[in-house]
């Protein structure tokens, strides 16, 4: 019986993550449409796009072009197993936050390699922008994670979630500074405006996806759904107590996602230097303050 529960626990989160991710993209386009005062596509439109994309003969530039994309999607799938998802966490005890940090490298690396094989300057510029922005938000992202780890004196995310049970969430504990810093860099992690210079359709014809056709674009959309899920699930796990069952967890994620969509709708797209200058100034300062606060308390 335990084995069945274990297998169930391993298979269910990725499927739920996929459904939630696709739902989030649909919700995203619907909210954006309503802000533009237009009717907007049905919520399941991304799902229809996926069906269409799987029936298109995409162009491939070579073996690495496919393998890089497959690697990045597999990396984000594995990452979901490490993140506690409403009481379920398949691989919670094999590595904790440090492994999460390092498995997060698979996705940008995979897409960078497959894009590089696509031999198109638009892609290379997109990838170099993606890595620069990632370097920008990693500074405060690492500081936030370090404050959490030193505050709870553990590197396993499951312990952090359990420590926040019955309503004393980390967001309202002395870690509120790190929570605010994480919220400030969340648009950069998810890659949406004001930091979506990476896949800017107008400037570099949608950056890394310039050469992706049928199946490749489908895999990229699934990866985008997963990365939306991961970015927000991490925030909910680390700062909002992570929810005892998937439904409460999903509710918290929707709230955070709608907030981030509104930020997306309002802000223009920052240039790369402006984005990095901002990321290295305000979120880093706040997360440093959070770290000092935790050091003083300890």
């Amino acid at each position: 019986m335990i084995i069945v529960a274990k297998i169930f626990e391993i298979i269910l989160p990725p499927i739920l993550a996929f459904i939630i991710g696709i739902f989030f993209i649909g919700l995203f386009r619907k909210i954006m449409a309503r802000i533009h005062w237009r009717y907007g596509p049905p919520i399941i439109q991304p799902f229809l796009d996926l069906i269409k994309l799987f029936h298109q003969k995409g162009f491939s530039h070579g073996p690495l072009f496919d393998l890089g994309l497959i690697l990045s999607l597999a990396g984000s799938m594995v990452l979901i197993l490490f993140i506690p998802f409403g009481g379920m966490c398949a691989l919670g005890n094999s590595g904790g936050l440090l492994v999460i940090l390092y498995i997060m490298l698979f996705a940008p690396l995979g897409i960078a390699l497959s894009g590089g094989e696509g031999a198109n300057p638009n892609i290379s510029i997109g990838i170099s922008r993606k890595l620069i922005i990632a370097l920008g938000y990693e500074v405060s992202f690492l500081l936030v994670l370090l404050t959490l780890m030193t505050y709870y004196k553990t590197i396993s995310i499951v312990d952090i979630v359990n420590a926040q049970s019955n309503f004393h969430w980390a967001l309202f504990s002395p870690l509120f500074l790190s929570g605010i810093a994480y919220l400030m860099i969340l648009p950069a992690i998810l890659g949406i405006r004001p930091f979506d210079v990476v896949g800017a359709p107008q400037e570099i014809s949608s950056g890394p996806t310039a050469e992706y056709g049928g199946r490749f674009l489908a895999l990229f959309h699934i990866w985008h759904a997963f990365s939306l899920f991961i970015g927000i699930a991490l925030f909910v796990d680390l700062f909002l107590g992570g929810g005892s069952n998937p439904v409460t967890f999903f509710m918290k994620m929707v709230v955070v996602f709608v907030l981030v969509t509104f930020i997306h709708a309002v802000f223009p797209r920052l240039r790369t230097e402006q984005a990095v200058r901002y990321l290295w100034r305000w979120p880093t300062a706040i997360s440093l303050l959070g770290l000092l606060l935790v050091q003083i308390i300890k």
Partner: protein
Amino acid sequence: MDRKDIKKWFKEPGKMGHKYSLWAVYFCTGCGIIEVPPVITSRWDAERFGVIPVATPRQANLFLITGYVSVKTLKAIIRTYEQMPEPKYTVGFGSCPINGGMYWDSYNTIKHLDKYIPIDGWIAGCMPRPEAIFIAVTHLWTLIDKGMATAHIKYREKYKYYRENQEKVLKGLDWPPLYPIEDSND
């Protein structure tokens, strides 16, 4: 508008998928492009039918030829059309791409575009209004439904003739033929 017809989705997902998620190449080939922004923005929102503009032909399956085609633009149109993934549909705006329109006797514009690339459908009107474009999209749905939107297959089979016409108009295309041409086939 049989988007909610679940049975049809399971029977032929490919057709339904292509019907309800037409991604148009955002590439203005003539004077008609002035009609496309109102189509995709708030007033006549095309996204409710799943039609959104995408940045590169690699991601698109709908190609809107908006307006007259000069010899120079023909080169870019052929290049973009060849770079689109396989099930692709083209729609011509106005009468200029059909038979040259008011530039019928000009030395520099292409008279019959379907001598060079296959066209699925035409919209009449010297720059059709957004409603006409939506009607065209619905016609395209019926074509796809009935399996008559086979321009891309015709292009693949008759590529030899298309290539000859293209080389006649544009002296020496500087990219290799898309499909291998067997010289003596008939």
